[in-house]
């Protein structure tokens, strides 16, 4: 037995196990002892505990790596724990915690507060764990699907809300379609390499010409599937609808954690096995990036639904992050990581503010709902300002640091044109972000606007995301160190 499940394997897999256990525990206890919606808040304890334990496990792994250096592979190279993976793990932990903590009030207001929610959150994170740590196609594939399917459910979690159902359905069908193509691509990869382990695949790919037709088949189909997951144009069509229909906090979770996890996979593949074929796919990704920035920014300009607006903006952000991968230099990869980190916090924060706008029967996702927020809740308004300014990429906020890296990497690698395009779209982006700022600070209050639905969780979440967004902007050093560490192999 031991040869199938060694201590190392255990050490590596432990966080996932913990997460899964606590997830199942949540589901179980929900059925057993929490008949009333109000009491279900207690399930948060499981979430917190689960994350705490998982965090502890991750911490031990980090400590181990720092001590011995290198990285831990397990299950015959099916899983790996390196700083790169851990970077994402920490991201997931934070995102899941925040999402969970701030959701309950919203769910109660939309009276869909069920224990499954928290369980599913943690199971989704489990899926993400394998996306970040997996180094073998099947693991990655199943992990991806675990995450995806959980998200189909979470997006449709407001079962009484037709928009939610619709969003879930669209997301599911399109998601499955992309899964099909992804799987097809994987199958081809397997076909040309005779193995599902990335290490061997990369050997097989390196042996082939970058323009080899079969390789092209693999890259094309798998690439399409992945670009779909990170909602890059032209595979972004699902995003606005799914984002709009989903429960607001899930939208945030979807826009950050899911995107980050998919990027983790994307990087693993394109920097690792497909690296040798760079010359063939670089122009493609560049095109996708430019298209994403174009579509995302332009579409957002006239958008009046804040969730859709942020959805489009997230499409454009995906474009920016891709630019980092296109640059390909260490700076670029670092840029991708940093960007993902800051993006996670500022986007979560923004969605958090939107969440607290929800009222009985009202999603609160129209831009008018933001009006006069400065009067109604100055604290929220100021944090919102921070998030929007950061999303726009204006110093001294975290968003600027991310963009800074991307531009730096592009110029370093001589992609001046891409840099200029990116810069120009920053200006376009200002336009719609500041339409929200305008609504928050300048425009008069809506007449029937009631009080915000604020909870302790919201306050905590706001404080954390906001503080981080500012802190990273003012003193990014630790984050940069972390990113540096993550790409040093």
């Amino acid at each position, binding site marked *: 037995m031991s040869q199938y499940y060694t201590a190392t394997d255990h050490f590596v897999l432990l966080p996932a196990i913990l997460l899964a256990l606590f997830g199942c525990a949540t589901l179980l206890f929900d059925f057993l002892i929490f008949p009333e919606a109000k009491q279900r808040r207690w399930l948060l304890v499981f979430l917190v505990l689960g994350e705490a334990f998982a965090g502890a496990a991750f911490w031990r792994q980090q400590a181990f790596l720092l001590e011995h250096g290198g990285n831990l592979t397990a299950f015959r190279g099916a899983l790996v724990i390196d700083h790169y993976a851990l970077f994402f793990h920490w991201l997931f932990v934070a995102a899941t915690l925040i999402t969970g903590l701030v959701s309950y009030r919203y769910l109660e207001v939309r009276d869909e507060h069920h224990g499954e929610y928290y369980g599913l959150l943690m199971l989704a994170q489990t899926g993400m764990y394998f996306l970040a740590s997996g180094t073998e196609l099947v693991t990655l594939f199943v992990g991806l699907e675990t995450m995806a399917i959980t998200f189909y459910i979470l997006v449709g979690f407001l079962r009484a809300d037709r928009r939610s159902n619709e969003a879930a*359905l*669209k997301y599911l*069908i*399109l998601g499955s*379609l*992309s899964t099909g*193509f992804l799987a097809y691509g994987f199958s081809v990869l397997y076909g040309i390499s005779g193995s599902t382990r990335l290490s061997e695949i990369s050997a097989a790919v390196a042996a082939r010409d970058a*323009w080899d*037709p079969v390789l*092209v088949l693999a890259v*094309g*189909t798998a*690439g*399409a599937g992945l*670009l*779909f997951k990170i909602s890059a144009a*032209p*595979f972004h*069509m*699902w995003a*606005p*609808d799914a984002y709009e229909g989903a429960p607001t906090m899930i939208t945030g979770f979807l826009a950050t954690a899911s995107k980050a996890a998919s990027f983790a996979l994307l990087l693993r593949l394109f920097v690792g096995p497909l690296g040798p074929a760079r010359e*063939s796919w670089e*122009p*493609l990704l560049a*095109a996708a990036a430019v298209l994403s920035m*174009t*579509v995302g920014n*332009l*579409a*957002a*300009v*006239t*958008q009046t639904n804040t969730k859709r607006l942020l959805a489009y903006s997230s499409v454009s952000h995906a474009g920016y992050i891709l630019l980092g991968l296109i640059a390909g230099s260490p700076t670029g990869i670092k840029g991708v990581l940093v960007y993902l980190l800051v993006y996670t916090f500022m986007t979560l924060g923004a969605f958090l503010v939107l969440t607290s706008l929800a009222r009985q029967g009202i999603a609160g996702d129209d831009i008018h709902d933001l009006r006069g927020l400065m009067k109604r809740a100055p604290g929220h308004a100021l944090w919102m300002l921070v998030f929007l300014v950061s999303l726009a990429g204006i110093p001294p906020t975290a968003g600027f640091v991310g963009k800074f890296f991307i531009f730096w990497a592009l110029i370093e690698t001589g992609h001046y044109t891409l840099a200029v395009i990116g810069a120009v779209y920053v200006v*376009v982006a200002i*336009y719609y972000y500041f339409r929200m700022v305008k609504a928050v600070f300048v425009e008069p209050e809506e007449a029937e606007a009631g009080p915000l639905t604020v909870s302790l969780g919201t306050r905590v979440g706001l404080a954390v995301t906001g503080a981080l967004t500012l802190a990273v902007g003012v003193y990014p050093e630790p984050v940069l160190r972390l990113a540096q560490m993550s790409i040093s192999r």
Partner: protein
Amino acid sequence: MNFLDLIWLIPLIPLGGAAAMLFFGRRLSMAAIRGIGPGTVGLSLLLSLGAVAQLAGLENKSHEVVLYKWLPLIGADWGFLLDPLSSVMILVVTFVGFLIHVYATGYMAHEHGPHHGGYYRFFGYMNLFVFFMLTLVLANNYPLLFVGWEGVGLCSYLLIGFYFHKKSASDAANKAFIVNRIGDAGFILGMFFLWTLTGSLRFTEVNEALASARFAPEAGVFGLLSLTGLLLFVGATGKSAQIPLFVWLPDAMEGPTPVSALIHAATMVTAGVYMCARSNALLALTPETSHIIAAVGAATAILAASIGLVQNDIKRVLAYSTVSQLGYMFVAVGVGAYWAAIFHLYTHAFFKALLFLGAGSVIHAMSGEQDMRRMGGLKDKIPVTFRTMFVASLAIAGIPPLAGFFSKDEILWQAWSSPLGAKALWAAGWATAAMTAFYMWRLMFLTFYGEGRMDEHTRRHIHESPRSMTVPLTVLAAGSVVAGWIGMPKVFGESGFQQAFEHWLEPVFEVAARAMHGGHEAAHHDASMEWALMGLSIGAAVGGILIARHVYLRLKEHERPSGGALYPVLYNKWYVDEAYNALFVEGLAKGGGGAMARFDAAVVDGGVNGTAWMTRLVSKISIWYDTWIVDGLVNLGAFTVRALSFPVRFFQTGYIHSYALMFLAGVLAIFGYYWWVR
């Protein structure tokens, strides 16, 4: 007590007065203002006298006091230079200025009142003017001179617009300031040229540099020196109302009469002449420019005089006379007789100030009436005014032995005999002399002789002015008589006294003299010719007077010659303003199209407003450009972004089909790309 080192106080004292009155004027009693206003100027007068007396003692006849560096980069100090030239100027300014201040205390008396704080404002401005004027003439470098230059312009602006509730007044003020600014543009550039050429803007250093061998006279060629001189002269034409920038001076008569007397007759307008005389070393090297100056001067003299012939507003007659006399001075400058120019400036200060003050007194008596056609027979009613003005008119007409005769005759003689001179210049001067005599005496006859043409009400109120006004008149009259005796022609016999003025100024102009030596000596051999010319000019003066007498005293209203076709031309000032109108307004109106109507207001009177109108038309165009092109492009950009936003969003139909289709299209695009590349 060493006055020479105190010369910086000379301008500063009036400044103190100005400050006192502008800041605390409202709290000051009328008496206090009466004291401070003239008092400060008087003090400067005394200081000047002392300083000049001591200057006479020095053998190099020049003394500089430098307070501190002002513009280090161009080496302009805050420093004063007292030399014969500036000494003449400060004496004129302080002396005439003092008298006019005294006069004003009486003349402006009705301005005082609780609601209408005109009185202190007036004296504040006047003192400020004196300060700037003294700075102008005492400056030891061009930039500081420019300070005074602009300052007097400012004061003239303030004083012309003194009755600022009158639109005409504020219009005239703007016109004056802006026209002067046009001149200043030339002046500034001139300074820079001079600076680059000589490496300094300090008079002494500039003269040394120009005197050095580096610079040869630009005979027959129009080089940098000539350009520099011309640019400086452009500045002068602005200040001293020469063609083409003279249009502002007649309008400037909107100001109170003492202002016209002090600023627009005696002092400020002569600043241009002073500046050219200061630059004598430069002009001496540039015959070409000198010719231009002389020509412009002569033209201005004739033009203005001819206009003066037919004006009916007493002050306007004097204004045009001033312009024409300034023309005289520039003729002198142009022919290189700088001392003669300054000499005429000095005598002119006396009798022209006197004439204006007299006119003021008349207007005072006529309770504000300025049209000579409604005057007449005032001779016995306001005897002092009459007598003094009588003297002044003789003086300006050039009747020996009054001041005007000597200065004018010297200029005519120089125009004839100087190497730079020309017979034509002399002729012009001679004709001007005749016209001057005619219009001055036309003025006298219309005003003081014959029977009164005013209405009963005014007639009853006619009264002699208070002593505060008559005393200055008398003093100036005396000046107009004797002032000329220190500058007699050498043919009258040479003595330290008879040519005192010329000798006094010699050190200043020696550089110039050296540059074109031999001129004077050569001329003076031919004494008989000088006598002859003198006779001719006296004849012209007398003739002018007699004709005027015949026309305006003997003939009745209807018998007077209409002047034929010429009359309307002259009466409408040679249509200069109209010409500017036609040039700037009508011409552009054709192009400007409908915009015309809007700017009628701006077009009402010629020259400057015409240019202003043109500029506004241009700026109108540029605004259009601004909103439609520059802004247009940007907003177009914004608009395109918004416009593009909709089609992009239009793809988001909400149908799974179209989404899937888009997905597949993406996949196809990828493979299409590979297929296309391979």
